[in-house]
């Protein structure tokens, strides 16, 4: 750590790959252009500068967001604004998920007071696995997003900056999240923030999970009735709030024989009938051994782990997930405490 690192700082992590997967072909998922991510980031600079954040650490990447930000920095900020110093992390670039993990580790090493994430559930899952107790500001730019919300970046930057500067206490603006952890053969392997689903499909393939055939078991940390993606299955059957103590797990079945069928929006523009055999409460700490003999595990909607009949997989719901900022709570606190109120200079 340098002396500079003790000044208030924020990390911004924007996943350049979010929003390019097969759901644009098999569903009607939206395209989130890199140019708009760049615009969101410069709006974050504006509000972070306004709050007084000194330094922003950003992930280097090979896909153009970093280049576009460098280009934006070649011209002065809009009149009357002072942007923070922008530092691109010195890191190897592999154009893979490992880049996100390395970047978050480096941001934490630099002592950032928060990490603003632009991405989908998958990107947030990766950040959550390395962020520890650094509060995350979750902004949606992916496809089936349940964990992050679509929020105006200007406001998100204000909220993240107020917390990073200590003007809003973390306890007043952040919430702890549940997480689904999966062990493979006794070793803690990965996590999901919203949904963990097994399928009898054999391959990770193009990653997204959008077919009903083969879906076998579904674990949900929370399930909202107005969600999209796998968690909508639980959300439309037995909603579970994000802040509720437990979660849900469901055994799925062929809709032709299942006692319950839910018409679920599995992806944008894609409604699929899902058969449900059983639904159970998922209690924190309870270990559930998966029944699926071989196939893949999807974490937050994307196939990640291939497993065989020789593997033993166990899922647990835990309350040791990431801290995320509740932007509305932070801004309400700011209003109540007049943090953005200015005195008339005259």
């Amino acid at each position, binding site marked *: 750590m340098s002396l500079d690192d003790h000044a208030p700082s924020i990390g911004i992590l924007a996943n350049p790959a979010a929003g390019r997967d097969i759901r*644009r*072909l098999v569903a009607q998922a939206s395209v989130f252009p890199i140019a708009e991510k760049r615009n969101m980031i410069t709006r974050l600079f504006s509000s972070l500068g306004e709050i007084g954040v000194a330094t922003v650490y950003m992930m280097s990447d090979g896909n153009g967001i970093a280049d576009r930000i460098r280009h934006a920095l070649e011209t002065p900020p809009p009149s009357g604004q002072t942007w923070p110093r922008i530092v691109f992390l010195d890191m190897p670039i592999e154009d893979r998920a490992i880049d996100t993990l390395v970047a978050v580790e480096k941001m934490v090493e630099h002592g950032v007071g928060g990490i603003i994430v632009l991405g989908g559930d998958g990107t947030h899952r990766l950040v959550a696995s390395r962020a520890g107790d650094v509060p995350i500001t979750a902004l949606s730019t992916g496809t089936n997003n349940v964990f992050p919300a679509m929020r105006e970046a200007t406001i998100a930057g204000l909220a993240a900056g107020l917390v990073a500067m200590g003007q809003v206490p973390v306890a007043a603006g952040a919430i702890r999240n549940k997480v689904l952890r999966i062990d493979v053969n006794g070793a803690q392997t990965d996590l999901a923030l919203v949904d963990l689903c097994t399928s009898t499909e054999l391959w990770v393939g193009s990653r997204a999970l959008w077919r009903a055939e083969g879906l076998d078991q579904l674990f949900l940390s929370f399930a909202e009735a107005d969600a999209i993606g796998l968690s909508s299955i639980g959300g439309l059957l037995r909603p579970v709030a994000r802040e509720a103590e437990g979660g849900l797990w469901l055994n799925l079945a062929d809709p032709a024989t299942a006692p319950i069928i839910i018409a679920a929006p599995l992806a944008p523009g894609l409604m699929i009938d899902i058969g449900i055999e059983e639904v159970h409460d998922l209690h924190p700490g309870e270990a559930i051994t998966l029944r699926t003999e071989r196939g893949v595990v999807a974490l937050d909607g994307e196939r990640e782990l291939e497993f065989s009949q020789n593997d033993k997989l166990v899922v647990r719901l835990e309350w040791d997930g990431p801290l995320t900022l509740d932007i509305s709570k932070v801004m309400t606190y700011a209003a109540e405490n007049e943090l953005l109120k200015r005195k008339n200079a005259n």
Partner: protein
Amino acid sequence: MPLGKDELLKAYRMMKTIREFEERLHVEFATGEIPGFVHLYAGEEASATGFCMHLDERDKIASNHRGHGHSIGKGCDVHAMMAEIYGRGNGLCGGKGGSMHIADLSKGMMGANGIVGGGSPLACGAALAAKQLGTNGVALSFFGDGASNQGTSMESLNLASVWNLPIVFVVENNGYAEATSSKYSVACDDAADRASAFNMPGVVVDGHDFFAVHEAAGEAIKRAREGKGPTLIECKLNRYYGHFEGDAQTYRGKDEVKNLRATIDCLDRFRAKVTSAELLSEAELNAIDGEVAALIDDSVVKAQAAPMPAPAELLTDVYISY
């Protein structure tokens, strides 16, 4: 629908045949016996295979200068291909096309193409013909990140969308347009981003993973066959050799290719997946390795022994009577 054992064996054989064909050409080209330019496809096999496994005799493909893999994928005869590259009279095009103009219309392989971005307009024509004739065929255009910047590519994307053609545009982004990094030369971040401007789906897949390519390709080809229009799929992959044989590759990092071969090999990945899933055995895959090696060896021996085209052949196949 999961791939059955026969299809998995076919996929491995196709990928292995492409790899062996290219590795052998790399060796043979250095002897000076092969005329013209050769652009090798080694490292990109999962793309040609993942797409071509879905095609049949109704379908047509247009390729680019790096066309051996696409030709093998579409079913061109390996012996005739090797003879063509050696410029022999019994080659696929009578020895007149060579590597960069190799074609077999009887197989629906409309040709490798020396014009960067030259394949997509041809594929649009084939797709239009399929639509007008009601064959239910589809056309594929394989091109690179460099060609994705060409006007012909943009015009083809536009025309395909306007006419709702049964076509799939396959951008094989191997990171370099000749010696220029795609990170510099492609103004958008993924070539697939361009699709939305032409009102069609654009998807990025891991071009090193046969199963990822095969899955996305299947959906796009099914969509085209069902009359739902064109798709653009960008396969992110790497080439193991230079732009052409003889390219000193000074634009690539030290040990870049060595590291790629060690860590991202589509054949290794395929082998690891199917054996760990106990769908195919090492012995079955090794047997294919042996058969393919013998096939390629035989194709080289026969090509080298075959006669050159006779002088009387100079003007045949040049003009066509209508």
